[in-house]
């Protein structure tokens, strides 16, 4: 990349799908992006190289790994001014049949993992005198969804965390907001398809039927929202939840 980077960022869950699209967009916006995923793979290295960034392997549900990874980024590149908490784990099933340990793994990856990340990043962000944090929640954290109690609970928790930290941190110039994407064309939809007993293509069509716009979203459309929320001059968006979903939230029955 020939361009000049002006800020250091970290995007979790960035080996593929939405996280990879967000990393690419932030790089285009001048952010030197650390791309995180659970383990270092050729795929993660490939994303890092394509965005002119660097790999930050760590399991976000492991507090020790998160703090070590953030410390390493700060040593190598400086404090993190842009944090995008995108990593998520999802399994589906009826509440009473959902394996208890797996149910908690969803919550502890999505909700607790974000808590660990923000705690690890905040001291550096404070040293910078401000920063932008975007939490990728989900439409299902707003509306709920059958057979997704753990996922919906974790995402609704993230929305409340966003609102609270929005209020708590804005006075320090640290702006926390969320995006609640609707159904988006990412590899995560394979989980939905498997649960519904459909092919991925059938699942896409099934979801598109219920979306006023008539199609599912693209990862780049979510990444554009991240770009708005993390613009260096943007400090008026505080504790908000951008619902980028093709019109579903308030009309799906």
């Amino acid at each position: 990349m020939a361009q000049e980077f002006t800020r250091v960022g970290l995007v979790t869950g960035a080996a593929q799908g939405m996280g990879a699209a967000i990393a690419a967009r932030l790089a285009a916006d001048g952010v030197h992006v650390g791309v995180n995923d659970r383990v270092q793979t050729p795929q993660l290295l490939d994303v890092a190289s394509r965005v002119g960034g660097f790999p930050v392997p760590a399991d976000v549900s492991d507090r020790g790994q998160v703090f070590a990874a953030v410390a390493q980024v700060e040593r190598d590149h400086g404090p993190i001014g842009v944090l995008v908490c995108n990593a998520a784990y999802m399994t589906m099933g009826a509440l009473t049949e959902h394996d208890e340990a797996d149910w908690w793994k969803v919550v502890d990856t999505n909700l607790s993992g974000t808590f660990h990340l923000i705690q690890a990043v905040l001291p550096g962000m404070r040293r910078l005198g401000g920063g932008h944090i975007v939490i990728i929640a989900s439409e299902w954290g707003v509306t709920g969804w059958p057979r997704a109690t753990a996922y919906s609970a974790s995402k609704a928790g993230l929305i409340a965390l966003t609102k609270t930290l929005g209020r708590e941190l804005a006075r320090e110039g640290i702006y926390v907001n969320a995006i609640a994407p609707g159904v988006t064309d990412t590899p995560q939809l394979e989980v939905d398809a498997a649960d519904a007993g459909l092919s991925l293509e059938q699942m896409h069509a099934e979801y598109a039927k219920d979306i006023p716009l008539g199609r599912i979203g693209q990862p780049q459309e979510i990444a554009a929202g991240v770009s708005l929320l993390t613009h260096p001059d943007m400090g008026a968006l505080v504790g908000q939840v951008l619902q980028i979903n093709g019109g579903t939230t308030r009309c799906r029955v």
Partner: protein
Amino acid sequence: MSVVLVTGAASGIGGAVASSLRDNGWTVAGLDLQPAAGVALALTADVSDPAAVAAAVRAVREGLGPIDALVTAAGHYEMLPVSEISPESWHRMLRVHLGGLRNCLSVVLPDMLDRGRGSVVAVTSELAIGGGDGDAHYAAAKGAIIGLVRSLATEVAPRGVRVNAVAPGPTDTPLLSPDSPWRDREFLATVPNRRLTRPDEIAAVVRFLLDEGNFCIGEVISPNGGVVI
């Protein structure tokens, strides 16, 4: 180049939106009570007057071509206890805000639907979501805009037209008088980001919705410093 019609373009949020869109490649027609500066075509009309709006929209089409986007920012503000809101004041508030949107839509939307493309951003207010002491008629008018936006959005999305809204918080514009309680230091100390919102921050959100918000339908984005979360 795409053509956007911006109402309330002579000052404040509308003015910031007009210049931001112009700087980013849009051809801007500005509609206001006074001629807007720095736009490709400046028209004067009271948005509460359907005939005047229709004439202005005709002039835009003749001068600049088909209208690709509409941003409605024209508005006025007054703060009154509910018992002191006169019927005239109530009527005017609804006709300017809800009527201003409706009057523009009724002449802009048919063409957008015929062409199968278009984007509308209505400027509403955080008071429509959070309410406020002394804001009954303003909040009612701005709230009605949100109801219209959300309903219309789902109705026209399948036909290629996106409708969304922006709900700013207290913003540093001429609409806020120098002695406005929202400029008061004590009030600002209660705002999470400790300041008024800048018009350019609203403009950035509007531009996002027009240029990149292709999956945003009936969404209300709130750049408000955190006053309503």
